[in-house]
């Protein structure tokens, strides 16, 4: 694919090159899924405090009606995604594992009656505070996967001046193409969402970072930026995983390194995902809270892979069936891409705000792996974008030396999976590091309790 010739492609150091498999779906326009018969809306689908249900069994709800909220600052309200009746507020299986409280809504008939947000007549003249509040009320969280409440990101403390906003269009995970499709199909709305976000932040400099394998998206973005007289910079980035990790993206686009243990705002940057910018536009201009999103249903076990626009809370089964269903020999299913996605075993789990894809695999790249002892080859060290020594971290975690783990940067790990991807011994390095993180935190709590 050709890249824009006048733009320098930038990147971060290290990383890996997994097979992309994007051509399964990258050319397919998004299809809107018919309204699901029922949805399961999790009360906790973001980073921060879980919400409390505002409705009870038997209540009638409208599409877009706020049905759960929390008084905490770091949280995000939740809205009904269909018009219908609350059947239950109870525990249901969650894609993150286990059962958590969810609001189960059954659709009444065909109508899709909306209860929208009250929007300003002209966002360009309304105050930053009002806009940020609107973003909160719309229940917008980071849609790239982390689901961090967006209004918190957009209201940094006053001692952290922000000078750059980066729109993350990298989509470096294999298989996923929903950001790519959104950039092609919703170009203007995304750019307006970006402009609104930048107004809330009060920043002048905006960068759209896109991996160079999406040449059509780069071209579309550039053309619309020019046509709309925006002063955003479209920055092509090298195709490399994890280019879309916040810290890697900031390094690639601006050459700034977020301090270890710090946040992007420590270097004056806020990064949002493509879908998040689109959600901001839809909330502020169209008055729609976050009740649907695009996700990619793909993998070699899906009969007809595609990009779907799905109401949040739709069971996986419905999404998969809409794509022709599964092949007989399905061996692995994950939410998100294959590098950081969460494995699934129950197709009744609902989509979350941050569900960017459902990937179903017939062939597993793991079953063919045999396990060997670590031969100290250093491959994990040479690919770690955070410059850690994964082999040592995993061995320390395995042997219970959690204090040493911290000294070796345990909590700097972003769990991108590059190390385990290249490990010739098939050691589940990231899994051990996760164990280490949990245990080290437990240990710390215990010590504090004793003191």
């Amino acid at each position: 694919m050709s890249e824009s010739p006048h733009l320098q492609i930038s990147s971060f150091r290290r990383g890996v090159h997994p097979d992309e498999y994007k051509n399964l779906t990258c050319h397919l326009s998004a299809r809107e899924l018919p309204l699901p018969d029922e949805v399961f809306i999790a009360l906790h689908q973001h980073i921060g405090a879980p919400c409390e249900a505002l409705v009870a069994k038997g209540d009638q709800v409208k599409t877009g009606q706020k049905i759960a909220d929390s008084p905490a600052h770091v949280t995000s309200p939740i809205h009904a995604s269909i018009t219908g009746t609350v059947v239950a507020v109870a525990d249901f299986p969650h894609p993150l594992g286990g059962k958590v409280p969810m609001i189960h809504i059954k659709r009444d008939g065909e109508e899709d009656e909306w209860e929208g947000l009250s929007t300003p007549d002209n966002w360009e003249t309304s105050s930053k505070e009002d806009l940020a509040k609107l973003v909160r009320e719309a229940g917008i969280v980071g849609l790239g996967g982390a689901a961090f409440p967006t209004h918190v990101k957009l209201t940094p403390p006053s001692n952290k001046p922000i000078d750059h906003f980066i729109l993350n269009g990298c989509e470096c995970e294999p298989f996923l193409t929903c950001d790519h499709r959104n950039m092609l199909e919703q170009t203007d709305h995304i750019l307006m969402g970006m402009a609104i976000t930048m107004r809330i932040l009060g920043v002048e400099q905006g960068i759209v970072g896109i991996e160079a394998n999406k040449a059509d998206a780069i071209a579309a973005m550039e053309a619309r930026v020019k046509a709309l007289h925006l002063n955003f910079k479209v920055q092509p980035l090298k195709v490399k995983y994890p280019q879309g990790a916040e810290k890697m993206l900031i390094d690639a686009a601006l050459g700034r390194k977020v301090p270890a243990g710090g946040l992007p705002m420590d270097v004056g940057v806020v990064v949002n995902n493509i879908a998040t910018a689109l959600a901001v536009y839809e909330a502020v201009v169209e008055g729609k809270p976050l009740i649907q999103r695009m996700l990619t249903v793909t993998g070699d076990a899906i009969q007809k892979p595609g990009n779907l626009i799905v109401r949040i809370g739709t069971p996986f089964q419905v999404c998969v069936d809409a794509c022709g269903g599964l092949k007989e020999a399905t061996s692995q299913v994950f939410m998100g891409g294959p590098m950081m996605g969460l494995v699934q075993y129950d197709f009744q789990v609902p989509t979350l705000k941050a569900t960017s894809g459902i990937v179903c695999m017939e062939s597993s790249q793991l079953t063919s792996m045999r396990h060997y002892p670590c031969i100290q080859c250093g491959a994990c060290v040479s690919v770690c974008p955070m410059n850690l020594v994964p082999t040592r971290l995993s061995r320390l975690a395995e042997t219970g030396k959690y204090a040493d783990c911290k000294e070796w940067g345990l909590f700097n790990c972003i769990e991108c999976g590059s190390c385990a991807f290249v490990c010739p011994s098939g050691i589940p390095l990231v899994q051990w590091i996760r164990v280490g993180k949990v245990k080290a935190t437990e240990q710390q709590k215990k010590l504090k309790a004793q003191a």
Partner: protein
Amino acid sequence: MTEENLSQAQPEQPETPKNPVDKPKKDPREKLYHPERPLILASSPHFHAQATVPKIMWNVIAALVPTTVLALVYFQWAAVGIILTSVGSALIAETLVNRVKGEAFTIPDGSALITGLLLALTLPPSFSLGGTALGSVFAIVVGKHFFGGLGYNIFNPALLGRAFLQASFPVPMTTWTWPLTARYADVDGITAATPLGLFKFEHVTSDLSGLLTGNISGSLGETSAIAILIGGLYLLIRKYADWRIPLSLLGATFLVSGVFWLISPTSYPSPVFQLFSGGLMLGAFFMATDMVTSPVTARGAWIFGTGAGCILVIIRLFGGLPEGVMYSILLMNAFTPLINRYTRPKFFGEVRA
């Protein structure tokens, strides 16, 4: 509580990280989509680059082919005997250890074959087959499995085997013969000193063309620098060896020996001669780069190679032996855990005081 109650009260076991792939059948949490085909449950990442330990090992063996072929050409039946004995004993020893430890057979991973082959390539062509077998068994049993097997050994097993033979049979280990292809009429008898030995004890320099093609006396595999370079460059290009190690080792050897040569060109050999003589090339590309016994960090690799180069020159110039590749690498092997400990890379975004 009865035993039954207890087992019921046990929380569901989280997946053990050790072997995420083999587990799904026993995992109580899974629901089967296809009743006859369980889904695989594993922690991310779910993709793998498909590099494996055997792939690395067999590539190293492939890289040793040019050197092995030249050894066979130059030393013919002597080379055949030593290589077969050394490799065979290594494989038999590996199998017996597997049996005793009650573990899966590890010959297919290729590591025992490398040890046997590397040891053979470091032996003089006239060395006895019994001694070869002994050294090979020592390398596998003591050098590798006493330390815990593949991945856990501190010293390169082949070099440890050679060190053992050097200590046990000092005379046969330093008795060299001319390659059959170089047995000129004017050479008195079959035995010959190596170029390094010639220089050390008789102050005779050998010419470079012999060093490059290997038509000189020396160990089976250390005679031709060109054959070793072909294999070594293959390893570097395919990233099966860290380029920093041979570069720093050869660089340090060149620079340190160069300093001495500049001080006194008559009493010290030239740095070019140092580079291409003895076991340096084989050591730099195939022994020092042994992943298990060299550091994992980039800075560590520089320290490791430089350290080995400095020790090497000191042994060659001032030690009792003409050659020091083996001891310099073994010494640095011992430092590897320490080097790993103190060369932690700077974290992304880390500000060091």
